[in-house]
């Protein structure tokens, strides 16, 4: 299997999926899920204390995936580390063999399980992309030469359905200017809007992986619409879920439909199944 970068470079459609580290040190379930994805996806993202809930380190779990033969996308947020820790952990990931990194802002601590924590945000996601570019170029963020550089494939996030749209696109372009080479998008359900974004993004030399978030139920769709910014599940999909006997199966069918359509024009897809890694396999199979 080709690693994520070479697959995208050779203009083949790449599929990534998200996998969440365990809350604790027992990695058996995490590894079971990883093995399910092995051979099915081109790379697997390891989330970094997602939703500000404390879990096993994304760096450690990225290494576990690598040992299993899966190309990891090491996710790093700006929330939990200052600029010293960010740089040393990025170099640490590189020397351990990790080659893909996704720079994110990170959810605010007020959403998580440690609400009393100090949220760091010493640098933001644009600045983090710039820092990684500098490490790739052989200096630290201060411009001091490093004894050995990194060579990381830099990814970032964009919300194609953001409202308002223009400031999101300005930030998207700043991330590109700072050195982002691939984008995994926020989940979207309106393919027409997404195509509009994709056409806009085509002027830049970056790879776009469209975000697919598995709808496990109509209840989840309502929750997303109410609580997750930038995600809008249209009524016809909610109706489709509600009128079906097995909502999860229907959700998988909807996701497979999205994946199939993305394959016709996009560079890749990023599937987020939130604990339903076995469904990722079904989505990919159904979209063949």
């Amino acid at each position, binding site marked *: 299997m080709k690693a994520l970068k070479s697959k995208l470079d050779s203009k083949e459609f790449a599929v990534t999926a998200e996998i969440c580290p365990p809350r604790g040190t027992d990695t058996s379930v995490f590894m079971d899920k990883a093995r399910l994805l092995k051979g099915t996806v081109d790379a697997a993202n390891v989330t970094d204390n997602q939703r500000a809930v404390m879990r096993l380190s994304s760096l450690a779990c990225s290494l576990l995936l690598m040992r299993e033969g899966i190309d990891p996308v090491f996710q790093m947020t700006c929330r939990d580390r200052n600029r010293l820790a960010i740089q040393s952990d990025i170099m640490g990931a590189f020397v351990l063999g990790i080659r893909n990194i996704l720079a994110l*802002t990170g959810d605010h601590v007020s959403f998580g399980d440690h609400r009393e924590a100090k949220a760091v945000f010493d640098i933001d996601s644009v600045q983090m992309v710039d820092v990684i570019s500098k490490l790739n170029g052989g200096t630290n963020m201060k411009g001091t030469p490093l004894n050995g550089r990194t060579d990381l494939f830099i990814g970032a996030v964009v919300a194609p359905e953001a409202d308002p749209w223009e400031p999101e696109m300005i930030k998207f372009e700043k991330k590109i200017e700072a050195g982002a080479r691939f984008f995994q998008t926020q989940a979207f359900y309106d393919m027409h809007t997404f195509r509009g974004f994709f056409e806009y993004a085509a002027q830049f030399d970056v790879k776009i992986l469209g975000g697919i978030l598995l709808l496990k139920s109509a209840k989840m769709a309502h929750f997303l619409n109410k609580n997750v910014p930038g995600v809008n599940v249209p009524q016809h999909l909610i109706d489709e879920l509600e009128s079906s006997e097995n909502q999860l199966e229907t959700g998988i069918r909807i996701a497979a439909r999205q994946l199939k359509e993305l394959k016709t024009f996009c560079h890749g897809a990023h599937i987020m199944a939130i604990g339903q890694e076995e469904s990722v396999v079904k989505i990919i199979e159904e979209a063949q």
Partner: protein
Amino acid sequence: MIITKKKDFGDILEYLKGREKVFLFGCNSCAEQCRTGGEREVEEMKRLLGEEGKEVTGSSVVDETCYNMLIKREFKRKEAAASSDAILVLACGAGVRTVAENTDDGTPVLPALDTLFLATVERYGRFFEGCSLCGECVLGETAGVCPHTYCPKGLLNGPCGGMDGGRCEVDLENGCAWIDIYRRLKAQGRLHVLKRISPPKDHSKDLTRPRKVVLDRGVRGGA
């Protein structure tokens, strides 16, 4: 204006455990406007402490409790201030600090308030945070909206994924600071400013504590 709020009275009593003679300081500036440390609140504190069997040896509501000369004068005027078991200060942290500077090391100086933020006074009794005192003002690039103060993450390059239809997901009551900045810069024909990558903040300008400023004589004027 420095905004303060009253500490829980139970916490104040805990501070004063074993201290029977208490002197009170109030502040006629910010704390008076916040209704946390003016004449009225000092009288109220006297009554509450009296009910708990404490002896209030005296009180001073100073025009500006953060002004060292004024506090020094009060200690000269009121002998009880220096001879009490404890001094309770109904002022901001700077006020408490100024009183503590003027006492011997053996007298506890205790805060009756929690100090919150530097505010814009919307109107009497309505305050919102105006400035985070970060030491490096970016308002010129952000159309007068401070991202350090109004963005819960203090981001410097635009909205995060938590922006929801122009609102901030951390508190949907609040608009996203970056959407506000974007709209204003756009209206000013200065969107190019938003398109520039802002470098990381220089925290050496605000984290070297304690901060201090000493004006030279020419600037001070007078003698």
